[in-house]
C-alpha cells in the first residue's frame, strides 16, 4: 500500500508535468495575440479611388451642303473615326443637277439686274426733263407776278396822286356838290386800286407757290428700289453655294471627318436630302480628355477643384489630370470631372478608367492605425496595453481609453491629443476578440 502511494506520488508529478505543458499550450492558444504600437505624428492621406468614364470634351458639327441626295451613310452613332474617314457619300448626278440649277438661277438673276439697270437710266432722263420744265414754269410765274404787282401798285399811286391834285385845288371850279362827288369818286377809285393791288399780290403768291411745288416735285428723288442689290446678294449667295457644290463634286460627293473622335449624332439617311443643319455631330478629343466619375458622400468632401488626379487606364498611368468641376448628386455624393489637355489620341469616348485622388491633411500629432479604433454606442475607444507583474511573468493587460477622432482615412485615424500617453502601447490588431482587462500576448512583427 505504501509502495502504491510512493509510486502514486511519482505518477502525480508526471501528471502535473503533463498538465503543465497542456495548460501552457491551451493558454498560448486561448490568450489573444496582439500587435501594438505607440501613436505617431502623421499626415492623413485621403485617397479617393473610383471608376470614371471618358466623355466628350468638345462636340463638333460636320456640315454639308443642303438639298443633296444622300447615296450612302457609312457610320452610326458611337462609331470612332479618325480624321479623313468617310462618313457619307452624296449622289453625284443629283449634285451635278443642283449645280446646273444654281448656274441657271445665277444667270437669270444677272439678266434681271441688267434690265433693271437699263430701265433706271431711262427714268432718270425723263425726270431730269420734268425738272427743267418745272423750273421754267416757276421762273415765269415769279416774273409774271412781279409785273402784275408793279402795275397794280402804279395804279394805286396814280389814284393817290389824283386825290392829292384834287385836294390841291384842281377841283376848285366845281360846285360843292360836284366837288364832293368827285372827291368820293377819287377815293373810291383809290380804294378799288388798292384792293386790286392786294388781289394781284395774293394771286401772284399762290401762283408762285404752285410753281415752286411743281418744281420741288420735279426735283424730288424717285422711290427706293433695292431689287438690284437684293439680286446681287442672291447672286453672291448662289455663287458661294455653287462653289461649295463644285468642291463637293470635286471630292466625289464624299462627307468626311475633319478630326478624330466619336460620332455622337447622325442626321442624314440614305435616300434623303441633306438638310440645313449638321449632317453629323462628333465628340472630338482634340480639346483634351474629360473623365467623369461619381464618388460617395463620405469621399466627396475630400475632393476639391484643382486637385491632381492620377488616371489608370489598363495599367498605364497618367499624372497630368486635374479636377475641373464638382457637381453634387442627389444622394449626397459628387460627380467630379477631371480633365487633361493632352492624350487626345489615347482615349476613346465611353472608355472606362480608374482615377485616384490623393489629398493629404496637415500633420496630426496623434495618429494610430484605424484598426486600433473601436466604436461602442457611438463612442470611440482604443485598447491600451498595461504591463502587470503576474505569476507567469510580466504580462500585458488591455485597458479601454476613450478617444475622439479628428480625421481618418481607410488606414489611419488622427486622434485628439491628451487622451493617450506618449509611451502607451495601443493594440492595432488581435487574432481574437478582446475586451477591457483581458490578458494578451504582445506580438512583434
Amino acid at each position, binding site marked *: 500500500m505504501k509502495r502504491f*502511494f510512493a509510486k*502514486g506520488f511519482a505518477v502525480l508529478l508526471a501528471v502535473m508535468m503533463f498538465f503543465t505543458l497542456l495548460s501552457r499550450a491551451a*493558454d498560448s492558444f486561448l490568450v489573444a495575440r496582439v500587435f501594438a504600437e505607440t501613436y505617431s505624428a502623421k499626415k492623413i492621406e485621403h485617397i479617393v479611388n473610383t471608376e470614371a468614364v471618358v466623355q466628350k470634351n468638345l462636340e463638333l458639327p460636320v456640315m454639308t451642303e443642303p438639298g443633296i441626295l444622300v447615296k450612302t451613310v457609312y457610320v452610326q452613332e458611337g462609331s470612332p473615326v479618325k480624321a479623313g474617314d468617310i462618313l457619307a457619300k452624296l449622289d453625284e448626278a443629283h449634285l451635278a443637277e443642283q449645280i446646273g440649277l444654281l448656274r441657271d438661277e445665277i444667270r437669270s438673276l444677272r439678266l434681271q439686274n441688267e434690265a433693271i439697270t437699263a430701265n433706271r437710266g431711262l427714268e432718270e432722263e425723263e425726270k431730269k426733263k420734268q425738272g427743267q420744265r418745272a423750273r421754267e414754269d416757276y421762273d415765269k410765274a415769279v416774273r409774271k407776278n412781279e409785273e402784275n404787282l408793279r402795275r397794280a401798285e402804279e395804279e394805286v399811286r396814280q389814284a393817290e396822286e389824283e386825290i392829292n391834285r384834287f385836294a390841291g385845288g384842281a377841283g376848285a371850279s366845281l360846285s360843292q356838290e360836284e366837288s364832293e362827288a368827285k372827291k368820293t369818286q377819287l377815293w373810291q377809285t383809290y380804294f378799288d386800286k388798292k384792293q386790286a393791288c392786294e388781289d394781284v399780290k395774293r394771286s401772284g403768291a399762290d401762283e408762285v407757290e404752285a410753281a415752286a411745288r411743281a418744281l420741288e416735285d420735279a426735283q424730288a428723288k424717285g422711290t427706293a428700289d433695292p431689287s438690284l442689290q437684293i439680286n446681287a446678294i442672291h447672286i453672291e449667295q448662289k455663287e458661294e453655294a455653287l462653289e461649295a457644290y463644285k468642291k463637293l463634286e470635286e471630292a466625289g460627293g464624299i462627307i468626311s471627318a475633319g478630326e478624330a473622335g466619336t460620332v455622337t449624332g447622325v442626321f442624314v439617311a440614305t435616300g434623303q436630302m441633306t438638310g440645313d443643319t449638321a449632317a453629323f455631330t462628333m465628340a472630338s478629343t482634340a480639346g483634351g480628355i474629360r473623365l467623369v466619375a461619381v464618388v460617395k458622400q463620405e469621399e466627396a468632401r475630400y475632393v476639391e477643384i484643382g486637385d491632381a488626379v492620377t488616371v489608370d487606364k489598363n495599367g498605364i498611368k497618367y499624372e497630368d489630370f486635374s479636377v475641373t468641376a464638382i457637381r453634387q448628386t442627389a444622394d449626397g455624393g459628387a460627380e467630379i470631372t477631371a480633365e487633361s489637355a493632352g492624350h487626345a489620341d489615347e482615349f476613346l469616348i465611353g472608355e472606362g478608367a480608374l482615377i485616384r485622388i490623393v489629398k493629404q491633411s496637415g500633420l496630426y500629432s496623434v495618429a494610430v492605425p484605424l484598426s486600433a479604433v473601436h466604436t461602442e454606442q457611438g463612442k470611440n475607444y482604443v485598447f491600451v496595453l498595461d504591463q502587470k507583474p503576474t505569476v507567469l511573468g510580466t504580462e500585458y493587460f488591455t485597458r479601454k481609453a476613450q478617444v475622439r477622432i479628428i480625421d481618418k482615412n481607410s488606414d489611419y485615424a488622427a486622434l485628439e491629443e491628451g487622451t493617450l500617453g506618449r509611451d502607451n502601447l495601443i493594440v492595432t490588431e488581435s487574432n481574437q476578440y478582446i475586451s477591457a482587462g483581458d490578458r494578451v500576448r504582445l506580438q512583434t512583427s
Partner: protein
Amino acid sequence: MRYVAARFCRMAILIFFAVFTFGPVVFLAGGSIMGDAEVKSYLGPVLSGQEGYAMWRLLPLYPTLRHLVEVLFDAPEFFHMFWNTAKITAGILLGQVVFAVPAAWGLARYRFRGKKLIYQIYILLMMMPFQVMMLSEYLVLDGLELLDTLWAVIWPGVFSTFSVFIMYRFFSGIPEDIMEAARVDGAGEWQMFLRVGVPLGKTGIVSALLLQFLECFSMIEQPIAYLKDKTLYPLSMYLPEIDAGRTGFALCASLIALLPTLFLFMAGSDYLEQGIAASAIKE
C-alpha cells in the same frame, strides 16, 4: 460490560474528532465539484455579505467538473507555482541531506566541548517562531543578495534545526557496540557514518525529510517576506491570487494542491509516526 462501554466512549470521541479533522477535506472535495452559483448560494453570507448564515452540503446538487477542467487546462499559473514549490522543497530537502544529516550525526555520535550548548541552541532556535528570526534572516539574505530569489527561501530551510533535532534522536539510538565493532573492523569515520549511521538512521532521516516536506509544501511566511517577484511564488500563495468570486475554482485548486502531501503522507505514515514520536521523547 464496563470495558465495552469504555471502548465505545473512546470510539465516539475518536469519531467526533475524526469528523472535525476530515471536515475541511470533505468541504474541499464537495466544493471542487460544485458550481459557482451553488457555492455562492451556500457561502454568500461569508463571501459577499449576504444576510443569513452560511451553510454547506456534503454533496452538490449540480455537480460539475468545470473547475477541475479550469485548473488543469486554463490555469498555467497554478502549475508554475506548483513547480516553484517543488523546486523550493527539493532544494531544502537536498540541502538537509547534505548539511543536516552530518550535523545530526556529529551531534549524536561525537563528544566535544560545547556539544551540550550547541544542542541547547538548536533546541532554542527550533522553538523560536519565524517572526523572531525573520528580520535577521532578511538582513543576512539581503547582504548575500539572495532576496527575491528562490535561494532566499531554500537556504534558511536547508539549515532548519527541526530536522537535525529529529535525526539526532535516531542517530543517538544506534548502540555504541555497533560503532565499536565497526571501528574494530577498521572502518573510518566517514565509513561509519555512511555505512552504519545512515542505514541505521534511515528511519529518522526519512521521517525528518517527510516532516520537512510537509512544512515546505505549505510554507507561506517565508515567500511573503523574501519574495517580491510573483514568478517565484510557491503554490501556497496561489489561493490569495484567486478572485473571491471563484470559490469553486479555489477549492478545486486546493484539493489538487493537497494531493502530493496526501500521497507522501500515505506512503511514509510509519516514518512520520516514528519521527513525531521521536520528537516527543524526553532527553
